[in-house]
C-alpha cells in the first residue's frame, strides 16, 4: 500500500517536473519567437524601394479588373453565418461598389469603397454597426489594395520562391506575397506592430482572378470564404 502510494507520488512529481519543463520551454520559445517576430522577418533579404506611385508593379490584377466579379461567399462571424453572393464592381478609378446579396437576391449590404473609405449605401440593421463596418473596410481595402500607405518595398526570398511586396504606414504593414514561379499574389498578410492581424490566401487563379479566396482574422472570430462564379 505504502509503496503504491510512493510510486504514485513519484509519478505526480515527475508530471509536475515535466510540465514545469514544458512551461519553461514554452516560455523560452515564445520569448524567442517574440524576439524573432519583433524584428523584420525580411531584414536580410535583397530589397528594392519603390515610390508609392509604382504600386501597379505588384502583379495583383483584382483591383484593376473592369469586369463585374461575383464570388459565392460564406462569412462566419462569431456564431453568425452569412452566405450569399459578393459582387465587386470597379465603377471609377479607386472607386468600387461591393454588395452582398442572399441567394434569393435580397441585399445584405451595398458599400462604396472610395479611395479606401467605406460608405454605406445599404446595410441590414444587424450588421450596420461601426465596429463591423470598420472591419469590412479593412478587409476590402486589403483585398482590393486600397489602403493608404507611405512606403513600398519589395523583398526577394529566393529560398521560399517568394517576392514580398510590403506596403507600410506607420506601425501597419501590408504584405502582398508573390509566388515567383506563378507570378501571382498568393498570400496577403496584414500586421500591426509585427503581430499578424489578418491573413488572406488566394488560390486557383483563373486568368488574373483568384478562384478561391480565404480571409481570416486572428484577433476576432471572423472568416470569409469566397468562390468565384463570374
Amino acid at each position, binding site marked *: 500500500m505504502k509503496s503504491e502510494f510512493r510510486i504514485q507520488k513519484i509519478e505526480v512529481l515527475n508530471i509536475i517536473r515535466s510540465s514545469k519543463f514544458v512551461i519553461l520551454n514554452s516560455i523560452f520559445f515564445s520569448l524567442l519567437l517574440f524576439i524573432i517576430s519583433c524584428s523584420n522577418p525580411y531584414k536580410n533579404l535583397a530589397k528594392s524601394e519603390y515610390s508609392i506611385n509604382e504600386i501597379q508593379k505588384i502583379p495583383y490584377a483584382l483591383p484593376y479588373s473592369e469586369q463585374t466579379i461575383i464570388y459565392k461567399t460564406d462569412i462566419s462571424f462569431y456564431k453568425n453565418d452569412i*452566405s450569399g453572393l459578393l459582387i465587386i464592381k470597379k465603377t471609377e478609378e479607386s472607386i468600387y461598389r461591393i454588395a452582398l*446579396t442572399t*441567394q434569393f*437576391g*435580397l*441585399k445584405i449590404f*451595398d458599400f462604396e469603397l472610395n479611395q479606401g473609405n467605406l460608405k454605406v449605401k*445599404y446595410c441590414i*440593421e444587424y450588421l450596420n454597426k461601426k465596429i463591423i463596418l470598420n472591419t469590412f473596410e479593412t478587409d476590402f481595402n486589403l483585398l482590393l489594395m486600397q489602403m493608404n500607405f507611405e512606403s513600398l518595398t519589395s523583398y526577394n526570398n529566393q529560398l521560399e520562391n517568394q517576392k514580398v511586396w510590403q506596403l507600410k504606414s506607420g506601425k501597419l504593414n501590408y504584405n502582398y506575397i508573390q509566388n515567383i514561379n506563378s507570378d501571382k499574389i498568393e498570400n496577403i498578410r496584414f500586421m500591426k506592430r509585427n503581430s499578424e492581424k489578418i491573413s488572406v490566401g488566394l488560390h486557383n487563379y483563373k486568368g488574373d482572378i483568384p478562384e478561391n479566396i480565404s480571409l481570416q482574422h486572428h484577433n476576432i472570430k471572423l472568416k470569409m470564404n469566397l468562390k468565384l462564379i463570374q
Partner: protein
Amino acid sequence: MTKILSTVLSLLIFSCIIYAQDNNFKEVKDIENAQLDLAKLSENTNSIQSTFIQEKHLSFLTENIISKGEFYFQSPNKLRWEYSDPFKYIIVFNDKNILIKDENKLSTFDTESNKMFSEINNMMIGSIQGSLFTDSERFNVKYFENTTQYLLELDPKLPEMKSMIKTIKIYIDKSDISVSSIKMIESSDDYTSINFTNRKMNQPIDNNKFELK
C-alpha cells in the same frame, strides 16, 4: 408654342413608356370578385413543380445577375428551392425545419429560432399559395389586372420588413390562377424578379424532395 408642344410630346412618350412597362395593367374595379377568383389559388393549389429564372438588378451594374433552378411546393408548408446555375444551393422548408445544402455542406435550422428564414419562408409560401394577399396586418394590397394577368402589389407595413422591401409584385395568370412571376423591389429600387417557367400544377411530388441528406 414649340415649348408646349415638346412638353406634351415628351409627356406622351413618357406615359407610353410607363404604359408599355406595366403591360396595360389597370386597377381592378371589382376587388371582391378578384379576391374570390384569387382565393382559388390557395384552394386549388396542392402542389407546384416549376423551373425558375431569377434576375437580380443592381443599380451599379449594367447587366442583371441571373441564376436558375427548380422549385417544388407541397401544400400546406413544404417548399424546396434548388439553385443549380451558376452555383449549387438548396433550401428546404419542411414544417418548422429549414435544411440548407450549400455545395456539400448540410445545415439545419428551425423557423422559430431563425427569424430571417422564417420571414423568407412565409413570404415565399405566402406569395405562391396566396395567403400573403389576405395578410392585411402585414401588407397593403393593391389589385391590378390586364386581359391575361392579375398584378398584386404588396407594400409591407411592418418596419423591419419595410426597411428591406418596398414592394412585392406578384403576377398571376388568369387562365389557371397560378403565379407566373414575383418581383421584390427594395427601397433603393434594386430588385429581384423570379419567373416561374414550365409550371406543373397538382402533380405528385416525391416526399424525399423535402428531405436533404
